[in-house]
């Protein structure tokens, strides 16, 4: 019987059915659910790795020992894992090895929009691209067979509209791999990539891609040709196929299930069968460039279809309607201009410990090198307390590097801020650098005891594994001291004045320092009982005292709003309105009460 499954669940199911024994990942939208789902299958060892590079290395080790292994990440995660990938392409595998990379066209939840298909040509390894859940499962299964047969890691490219779409699929049974488990010292020349061996493997890599090209033409079952009206043929893949098939059903299609290497003979056959070819692909002109390089005339592609942002049925229609059918695209009627409506951007949760911390940084007027996580939301006004953010754990090196230019003039003006999981992902190296090379930057580690933004995943600092088994816990203070940081302080961010003073002292110090937040678990992390530390359940605005200064609005708490209405305080101060606290949303963190200059925010009852 068919079931509804999310794309990520389907990839996990496909891996289980393929007999996978080891799964490793660092969470990242839209890929996070794959490993969470895989961890529910008892036959498989799964882990949250500290970062994507480690995930790929662990999975590769598992493969060398004869197990089928999978590593999963978002698109930018593969940048981190690129180092092992580019050489695992040479060593090849023993047990099937699949790397899932999930792109985020449209940047729903990412710092860039890179097209991961470039890795496949660059790394000289094959890549498959499913369009929906059924294909996600089937392609994952066959990826392991391809990996073992051709002795190669295989990339499986997903994206937001595959990973986070639900569609129907049929479940299959688990089949164990036939590869013998064990390590063999006689295989050293294949797995030790020193020049004398890697030069040999370099040749094997080229031979392999030639064999894979023959395979995708002759045997791979998921490149499909659909010849209807031959006047126009679309070459496409993944969700781009689904959008195009939806909008222009009467024409012909070549849907590529394998992105690379391309099936040259199949493409040649398609060009013979149809009159004009349009290439529809999201992001970069990857197929288009390659097909043009083969000598074919592509009638339309990126000349009409946007290369920026995600595609959709509407965008495909708008781009191609005129070319395909000679009729102009007719836009739907505008009844309300969306730009006239107030936006509803994401915000830090009510009671979140990041809020008072960034309020403190704002009050100190610091230039904040920020990072990747919920706390990036502090860039938005009115907090506006982040001024640079690039990639995982880049803030530490950034703050330290800026100090090298500004010298003493920069003292007291710069800091680096990142979360616990982000720090463990890539922050230890740059922290070491800051100490070793005598920088003065202050690094603030916001410890909320979980990987929060991606939906509460464990990491080496939480004390639990992915299966929720108790595990060792990183001691951030010891870690900082071990790399040579002499000044390590802890702050409770909910004590606003104290936090400001500690940060002020450390950023003015002409030496590297670290500040770690404590007592600040993610407000959504139930097991940490984050609300119990608050003295009162809610706070209320005392309208006898509120002067309408709007100071409480500066922290951008979702529970606080402005209520217009002329009036005055009990002691006669005129005002144009007051702050208002929504009891349904307030959790009693007391931050607003601390920053109110007129003591107008007081404990209340529900």
């Amino acid at each position, binding site marked *: 019987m*068919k*079931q*509804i499954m999310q794309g990520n669940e389907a990839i996990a199911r496909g891996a289980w059915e393929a007999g996978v024994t080891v799964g490793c990942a660092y969470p990242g*939208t*839209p890929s996070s659910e794959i490993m969470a789902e895989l961890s529910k299958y008892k036959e498989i060892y799964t882990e949250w790795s500290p970062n994507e590079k480690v995930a790929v290395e662990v999975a590769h080790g598992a493969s060398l020992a004869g197990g089928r292994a999978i590593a999963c990440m978002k698109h930018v995660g593969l940048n981190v894992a690129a180092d092992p990938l580019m050489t695992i392409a040479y060593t090849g595998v023993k047990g099937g090895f699949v790397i899932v990379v999930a792109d985020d066209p449209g940047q*729903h*939840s990412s710092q860039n929009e890179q097209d991961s298909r470039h890795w496949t040509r660059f790394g000289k390894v094959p890549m498959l691209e499913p369009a*929906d859940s059924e294909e996600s499962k089937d392609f994952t299964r066959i990826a392991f067979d391809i990996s073992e047969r051709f002795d190669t890691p295989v990339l499986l490219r997903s994206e*937001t*509209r595959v990973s*986070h*779409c*639900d*569609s*129907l699929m049929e479940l299959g049974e688990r089949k164990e791999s036939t590869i013998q488990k064990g390590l063999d010292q006689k295989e050293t020349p294949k797995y030790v990539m020193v020049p004398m061996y890697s030069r040999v493997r370099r040749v094997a890599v080229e031979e392999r891609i030639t064999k894979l090209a023959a395979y995708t033409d002759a045997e791979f079952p998921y490149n499909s040709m*659909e010849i*209807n*009206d031959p006047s126009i043929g679309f070459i496409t893949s993944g*969700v781009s196929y*689904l*959008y195009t*098939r*939806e*909008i222009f*059903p*009467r*024409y012909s299609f070549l849907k590529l299930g394998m992105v690379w290497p391309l099936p040259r003979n199949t493409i040649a056959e398609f060009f013979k069968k149809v009159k004009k070819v349009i290439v529809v692909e999201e992001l970069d002109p990857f197929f288009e460039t390659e097909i043009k390089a083969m000598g074919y005339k592509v009638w339309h592609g990126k000349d009409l279809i946007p290369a920026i942002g995600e595609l*959709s*049925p*509407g965008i495909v229609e708008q781009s191609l309607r005129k070319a395909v059918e000679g009729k102009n695209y007719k*836009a*739907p*009627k*505008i*009844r*309300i201009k*969306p730009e*006239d*409506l*107030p*936006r*509803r*951007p*994401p*915000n830090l*949760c009510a009671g979140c410990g990041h809020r008072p911390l960034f309020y403190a940084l704002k009050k100190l007027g610091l230039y904040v090198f920020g990072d990747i996580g*919920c706390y990036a*939301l502090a860039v938005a006004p*009115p907090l506006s307390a982040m001024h640079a953010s690039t990639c995982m754990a880049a803030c530490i090196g950034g703050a330290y590097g800026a100090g090298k230019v500004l010298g003493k003039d920069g003292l007291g003006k710069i800091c680096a801020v990142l979360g616990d999981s982000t720090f463990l992902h890539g922050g230890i190296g740059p922290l070491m650098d800051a100490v070793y090379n005598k920088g003065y930057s202050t690094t603030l580690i916001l410890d909320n005891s979980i990987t929060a*933004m*991606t*939906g509460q995943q464990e990491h080496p600092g939480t004390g639990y594994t992915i299966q929720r088994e108790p595990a060792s816990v990183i001691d951030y203070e010891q870690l900082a001291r071990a790399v040579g940081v002499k000044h390590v302080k802890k702050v409770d961010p909910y004590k606003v004045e104290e936090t400001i003073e500690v940060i002020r002292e450390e950023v003015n110090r002409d030496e590297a320092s670290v500040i770690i937040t404590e007592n600040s678990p993610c407000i959504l992390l139930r097991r940490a009982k984050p609300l119990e530390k608050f003295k009162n359940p809610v706070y209320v605005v005392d309208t006898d005292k509120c002067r309408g200064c*709007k100071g409480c*609005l500066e922290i*951008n708490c*979702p529970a*606080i*709003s*402005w209520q*217009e209405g002329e009036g005055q305080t009990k002691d006669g101060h005129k005002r144009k309105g007051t702050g208002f606290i929504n009891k349904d949303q307030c959790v009693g963190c007391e931050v607003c009460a601390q920053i109110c200059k007129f003591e107008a925010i007081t404990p209340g009852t529900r």
Partner: protein
Amino acid sequence: MGENGKVTNIFLSGVGGQGTILASNILGGVFLKAGYDVKKSEVHGMAQRGGDVTTHFRFGKKVYSPLIKYGDVDFLISFELLEAARYINWVKPEGKIIINKQEILPPAVSLGQMTYPKDIEKTFKKYFKNSVWIVNGQEIARKLGNIQAANVVLVGAFSNFFPEIKEEQWTDTIEEFLAAKLHELNIKAFYEGRRALKG
């Protein structure tokens, strides 16, 4: 050759935490049991932190795209007034609209920089006449003892548009997606919603 059959497009919109995902899961279960192909799409991650949340839900004999074409929505089910207004242009002229009568202030309004748009109901009625249903889901759910059930009240209201689907198919599916202790509340919420729209 190649032509697609009819697909029904349902667009759900709301604010993170209002339960749009549960509502769309219930729709998925119901239309799957009714023998249709089903696809749905939603964005996770950053969008969940109190931001606006949307789900594209489609069913038919064979569904290709997981996303609805802009301007092609048959049913707009919205859990919040402003989030209904934001997607009004997505609805077909003959589309049907069900809105939960609730206002959740976005930051610009909380901060006093913008006002919450008035006349949203009026604008919908101007363009869609009698095809607009405003349901006081939150109030109904509050009376039942838990405002969280407002999403299922809306599902109940929506169920009226599919007389061929039996009530049990809806209630069975609701039970499948919820813990046992929530069954009674949500089944009541479903029936209250179903009645509310029948008027």
